[in-house]
């Protein structure tokens, strides 16, 4: 088995990407897009400022040169139809050699059409049904939001991206260059022009959607199963069983979720190999401080398994998450109170659903009459869909459905016209129901696409208004085109993976024989105290070879075949039985199976042994031959060095022949076929053989 980490990703938006070589098959895990990278592009300017932008664009190069050592301005951003950044290292792999693609969450689908539009692509794609549905909607939304750019810049004819031409100039800010060219300067090839709706359609046609914990078998060899990871609706960890053992792929997981079905770690117990691919700890600095010491590993071994499992499920962190959500709601309510609007650009569906529910509830209980708008081309379908998948929702929400209520509370509010859904900001009915202050949910979190651009331009000067962002955006280029901003900004970072402190406990519960941990995680936490596991470290863009654990794979022999075996007893060893086995070796459901072959050999009882061991004492052989009516005499021939290693029996009756025997073997020398067979029978009687 070999693992190559192609990208460690960047938080929820950009999950890690790996290539796994297992049983001779290449498995690609996730195919994401680096959506934050599109912040290097300038948003589509709204009408008022269009002229201003074009004048900036027309500035002469001399003026630009002076900008070298100063802060970036909106004019530095690339004014062109955006391209999208894919996983760089993935392009180094021959697409046609990928056998299987496993997708672990909706964000991991976004780059898939780039792969499937390659004519050589022939891999089988597996993802959960919910991921397929949500992923497809997100891609469609992306394409529809992108249309605005295409409308603005017009169709681009050449396949060469014009925007790249001037970016290697000296006066281009380093930050921008770093995003475009990457740390090592070779990222240019990873930029792709966005796919079309047709590409999405043909991509999704190649997908095999799996149900919750459904076992699917690839090529008879690999049996794969998706178990919930808790990160988001439809997000999963993969369990792969093959003839050479079991493997689990653990992506960003959440133990107790308030929207999605929680991390199902019980199903991952006792695997041979566990790939730990949760990089979420890199997102938060808080963990780095106290993450280095793993608190209770020493006492862990004394605790019982259930206690350990229970300690993973403590509600502390999930309560923290609820508090965060409540805080966002209260902030929105505050600004609404003050007459300001709130713009929420969070993309994570589970969070959006919870916020929608919480906000509608809190607005209803208060006297505020503030409308909530959800502006997205797929909002209606997505919100309807989330109420029909109990198997992917947390327990409380499952129970709601079972007692006849919708799993998420938004339906009622939509019916009551408290929540308004619009496919786009220019939807005809939007203007009639528009009213400020209001609360708007508008993807996309990059602040380059979709209605959030216009709304941000509208409200950025209003100090009463509030912008709710995903963490990590403000530090980059995200807000640059909207500066100066008078709006309040609330950055949220929601839990998006396993806290490092819990990793030792998780490993003690799951008891994998080998754990593959990213080197960056290993630097932050001391895992040496876990003795039962052998821990291997993997790094980005390096291939890690993992030696096999189980020495020999199991084979199942069909009972019919086994009943036909003819057993040979061994002279010296009573404990042993050996039998020749002939059949057809099949691979089914990840197991070798030996069945009766098409061409059945002659009844194996008659077949003569082909392999022998032991040694032939000439005297015994002569005796045995005599019983068969063959007479012979022993002649001792001395080897050159005087040792007696070659002994010869002369056969005289009924026909002449010679038997040469040594430690290594026996040769029957005669031209009489019958005598030869008889002598062979005699030898066979003396030796053990099969």
């Amino acid at each position, binding site marked *: 088995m070999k693992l190559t980490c192609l990208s460690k990703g960047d938080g929820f938006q950009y999950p890690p990407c790996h290539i796994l070589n297992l049983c001779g098959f290449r498995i690609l895990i996730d195919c994401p897009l680096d959506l934050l990278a599109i912040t290097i592009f300038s948003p589509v300017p709204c009408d008022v400022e269009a002229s201003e932008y074009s004048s900036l664009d027309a500035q002469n190069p001399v003026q630009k040169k002076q900008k070298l050592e100063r802060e970036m301005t909106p004019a530095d951003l690339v004014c062109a139809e955006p391209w999208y950044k894919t996983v760089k290292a993935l392009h180094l792999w021959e697409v046609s050699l990928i056998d299987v693609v496993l997708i672990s969450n909706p964000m991991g689908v976004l780059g898939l059409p780039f792969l499937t539009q390659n004519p050589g692509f022939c891999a089988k794609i597996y993802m959960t049904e919910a991921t397929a549905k949500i992923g497809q909607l997100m891609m469609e939304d992306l394409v529809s939001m992108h249309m605005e750019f295409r409308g603005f810049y017009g169709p681009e004819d050449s396949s060469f991206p014009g925007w790249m031409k001037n970016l290697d100039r000296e006066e281009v800010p380093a930050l921008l260059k770093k995003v475009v060219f990457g740390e090592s300067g070779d990222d240019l090839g990873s930029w792709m022009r966005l796919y079309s709706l047709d590409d999405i359609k043909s991509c999704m046609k190649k997908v095999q959607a799996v149900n919750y914990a459904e076992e699917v078998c690839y090529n008879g060899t690999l049996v794969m199963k998706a178990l919930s990871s808790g990160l988001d609706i439809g997000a999963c960890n993969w369990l792969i069983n093959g003839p050479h053992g079991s493997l689990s792929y653990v992506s960003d997981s959440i133990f107790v979720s308030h929207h999605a079905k929680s991390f199902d770690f019980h199903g991952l117990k006792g695997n041979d190999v566990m790939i730990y691919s949760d990089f979420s700890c890199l997102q938060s600095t808080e963990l780095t401080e106290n993450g280095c010491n793993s608190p209770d590993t020493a006492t862990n071994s004394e605790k019982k398994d259930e206690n350990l499992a229970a300690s993973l499920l403590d509600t502390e962190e999930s309560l923290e998450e609820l508090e965060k959500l409540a805080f966002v709601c209260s902030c929105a309510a505050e600004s609404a109170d003050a007459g300001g609007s709130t713009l929420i650009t969070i993309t994570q569906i589970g969070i959006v659903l919870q916020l929608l529910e919480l906000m509608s509830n809190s607005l209803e209980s208060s006297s505020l009459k503030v409308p909530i708008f959800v502006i997205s081309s797929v909002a209606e379908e997505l919100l309807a869909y989330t109420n029909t998948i109990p198997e992917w929702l947390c327990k409380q929400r499952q129970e709601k459905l079972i007692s006849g209520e919708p799993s998420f509370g938004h339906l009622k509010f939509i019916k009551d016209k408290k929540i308004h859904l619009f496919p786009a900001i220019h939807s005809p009915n939007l203007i009639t129901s528009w009213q400020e202050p209001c609360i708007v949910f508008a993807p996309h979190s990059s602040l380059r696409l979709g209605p959030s651009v216009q709304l941000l331009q509208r409200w950025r000067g209003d100090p009463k208004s509030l912008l709710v962002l995903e963490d990590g955006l403000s530090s980059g280029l995200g807000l640059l085109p909207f500066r100066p901003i008078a709006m309040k900004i609330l950055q949220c970072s929601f839990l998006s993976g396993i806290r490092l402190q819990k990793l030792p406990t998780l490993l003690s519960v799951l008891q994998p024989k080998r754990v593959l941990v990213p080197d960056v995680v290993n630097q932050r936490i001391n895992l040496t105290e876990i003795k039962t596991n052998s821990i291997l470290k993997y790094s980005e863009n390096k291939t890690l070879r993992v030696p096999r654990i189980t020495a020999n794979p*199991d*084979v199942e022999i069909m009972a019919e075949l086994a009943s036909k075996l003819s057993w040979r007893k061994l002279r010296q060893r009573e404990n*042993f*039985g050996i039998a020749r*086995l002939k059949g057809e070796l099949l691979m089914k459901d990840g197991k070798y199976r030996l069945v009766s072959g098409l061409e059945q050999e002659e009844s194996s009882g008659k077949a003569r*042994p082909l392999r022998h061991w032991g040694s032939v004492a000439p005297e015994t052989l002569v005796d045995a031959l005599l019983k068969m009516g063959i007479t012979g005499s022993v002649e001792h021939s001395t080897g050159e060095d005087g040792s007696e290693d070659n002994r010869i029996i002369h056969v005289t009756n009924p026909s002449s022949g*010679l038997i040469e025997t040594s430690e290594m*073997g026996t040769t029957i020398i005669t031209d009489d076929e019958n005598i030869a067979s008889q002598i062979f029978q005699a030898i066979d009687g003396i030796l053990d053989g099969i």
Partner: protein
Amino acid sequence: MAIDCLILGAGQEIDFSLLSKTGDFDKELSCIIITHFHMDHVGALPYFTEVCGYNGPIYMSYPTKALSPLMLEDYRRVMVDRRGEEELFTTTHIANCMKKVIALDLKQTIQVDQDLQIRGYYAGHVIGAVMVYAKVGDAAIVYTGDYNMTTDRHLGAAKIERLQLDLLISESTYATTIRGSKYPREREFLQAVHKCVAGGGKALIPSFALGRAQELCMLLDDYWERMNIKVPIYFSSGLTIQANMYYKMLISWTSQNVKEKHATHNPFDFKNVKDFDRSLIHAPGPCVLFATPGMLCAGFSLEVFKHWAPSPLNLVALPGYSVAGTVGHKLMSGKPTTVDLYNGTKVDVRCKIHQVAFSPHTDAKGIMDLTKFLSPKNVVLVHGEKPSMMSLKDKITSELNIPCFVPANGETVSFTSTTFIKATASDTFLKSCSSPNFKFSNSTQLHVTDQRTADGVLVVEKNKKSKIVHQDEVSEVLNEKNHEVSLAYCCPVKGKGESEDVDLIKELSEKITETVSGTQIHESGNCLQVGSFKGTLCLKDKCVHRSEISSSEGVFLCCNWSVADLELGWKIINVIKQNL
């Protein structure tokens, strides 16, 4: 077979003492799986868990878990309030029982305990109905529950994958019926209802809350829309309304058609359907009413029937099957002019009667198709009328050549199940199995076959796991030294004159190819090789492998071959001898 610890469906009249004499059901049963929410499948569950004290796991699909409590409560009410029977379980029992239920997704594979693995497949009978696949060790069965092999308006057809099965247990409610297309039946039904309401009559459709009600309502709602009919369609009970709510959320368990449409318009949001009020029974004007329960056995539908039956304008459409003894059965089995309702109340029946032959059960063709598709080693038929089951049994036995059984209640049937013997395999063995084994035969056209046979040696040691090794490895495993047994003979070859050695070898190899078919001969210098047979021109004057030391003149081919090629070796020797 080890699956003796499984109830698939707990009907009403089960004598649970059959399962365990001591009453320790947890020990006797690994789990309970409920295939769907009909009373004959789930009816006794609360009684079994809450009264008998079963505490083990219970599995059912999400829709079954959601809808069973409604059905159970309705059933309990009918039993107690209407028939005045003693209740088997209470409302609290139902609630407590349902809390213990583990919900399943389709195809979700669950390891119940160390041995038992279960999985549900779409059965299409009612929403949430599953066929159950269960595997213990190497033995596997499928219990179909009730299923439907054709697509409905609101549900899909049963869907299962090819599985290796020792046993298929199939329902056979309609063991001899073969249904044609459902479209003419649908049209007849719609025309009957349309004619009735167009004539100002009232159409009564007695049906149960879940299943046929949705199917027929969808049909009517669609028709109403198309034909622009404004006559109201009513649902009698809250249960049906509530059921529609569930259908809207359980959309992923409905037919493909419904699933595709639901994002824009949920087909269970019926446009023309309204709630019925008791006062509307005598309201003038036409209407269509879905009233529970089906079969006109009791309750509201029977009450409405009493009022509407005497008018010749009206219509009673009876979907599906009616149990003998119910009013529905009486109406279907003839054209009675008066019917006994209850306690001697009689009513004149002058209304039209229309039988809607819509059944969510598969027909005989469906059973045959499923059996053929799954090709199990054995089939057991359950549920149905004995004579028709026997005829289906004969059909399965003769046409599909699969042993089929129709056990009576309480009868036990035993089967031999698949077992595999487990062994570990060495790498050399596995490699040898996958190495190509090309065979060329050259009759008229060149045939290339690649028949890979696994050829190994099974080594069994007491108290240890068996091993499969390659024959070369046996001695190593046994810690012995190989002893090779071979044959040798220095055969005289008389060449034509004093020909060159190479020519002689060529000549011989040609001869060998002629007589010994299917062999590949390698020649090199003064050697030729066929399999393990190796012949070298003997240059020695005296060779120990020569039998007649008669003449040292002439040319000899010193041959050596292993016992594996015993026959081959002799064949070649004979060829060479004949060439003399």
